[in-house]
């Protein structure tokens, strides 16, 4: 049973990476967002495999649900989804960013593979642990996040209203 989860992790990792590659090379924004939703779903399953069921649920609900729908809403509101106007950046523009990303990837890969992980306690992480950490240890952070969301709503309302801000 354990090795099945390991195989599942690698399969889902491949799905995530391929979905993201298809999303960032797609010239049509709506298709890119649908690919990205696929990628986020498999990432949510990876979170579930890594013993974080709540984060997996929130990934599906908030990311794949709310945030991507917000993107889709703006694309449709501004009428950016036209196929004839969509164009991909030329090949010359891809070269340098890919080199930069490759350097970052290679350096992180080198560090990660040469990293001797410290022994870890073998206690299973439950939702109860998560909730206690969230509301006891980081209770102030929850309050600050709620204030931040309120400010974001006020800012979005200010920017989105009619007339000149």
């Amino acid at each position: 049973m354990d090795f099945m989860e390991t195989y599942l992790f690698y399969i889902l990792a491949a799905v995530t990476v391929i979905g993201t590659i298809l999303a960032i090379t797609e010239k049509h924004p709506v298709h890119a967002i649908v690919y990205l939703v696929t990628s986020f779903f498999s990432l949510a399953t990876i979170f579930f495999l890594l013993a974080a069921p709540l984060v997996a649920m929130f990934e599906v609900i908030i990311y794949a649900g709310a945030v991507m729908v917000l993107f889709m809403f703006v694309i449709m509101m501004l009428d950016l989804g036209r196929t004839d106007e969509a164009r991909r950046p030329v090949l010359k523009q891809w070269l340098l960013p890919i080199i930069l990303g490759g350097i970052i990837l290679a350096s992180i890969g080198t560090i990660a593979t040469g990293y001797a992980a410290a022994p870890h306690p073998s206690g299973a992480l439950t939702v109860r642990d998560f909730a206690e950490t969230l509301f006891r240890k980081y209770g102030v952070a929850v309050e600050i996040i709620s204030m931040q969301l309120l400010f974001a709503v006020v800012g979005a309302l200010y920017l989105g209203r009619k007339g000149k801000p």
Partner: protein
Amino acid sequence: MIVPLAHVLILAAVLFGLGLVCTLVWRSNVIMLLIGIEVMLNAAMLVFVGGSNHWGMADGQVFALIIMAMTSAEVSLALALVVYLHRRKNTVDVDEFRELKD
């Protein structure tokens, strides 16, 4: 732990690199640029959740949740800005927005 921490870190590095490439390449469409930022934030969340699983502490999951709340605030503000900029210049090309005055 079903896989070594190094493999989770490598997956996160691949995702982060892809997000970075997307952000650097798509200057012609600010929506795709924001998608690149989303991908990078997801890679950071994957590192937090992987570390939380590896060390058996829930702090990483809490930070993943906080990143998610931060992202929803960021996206709502950024998309309001996109709507505002599109109303001003009728385009989403980032290179068009290079001057402070209109």
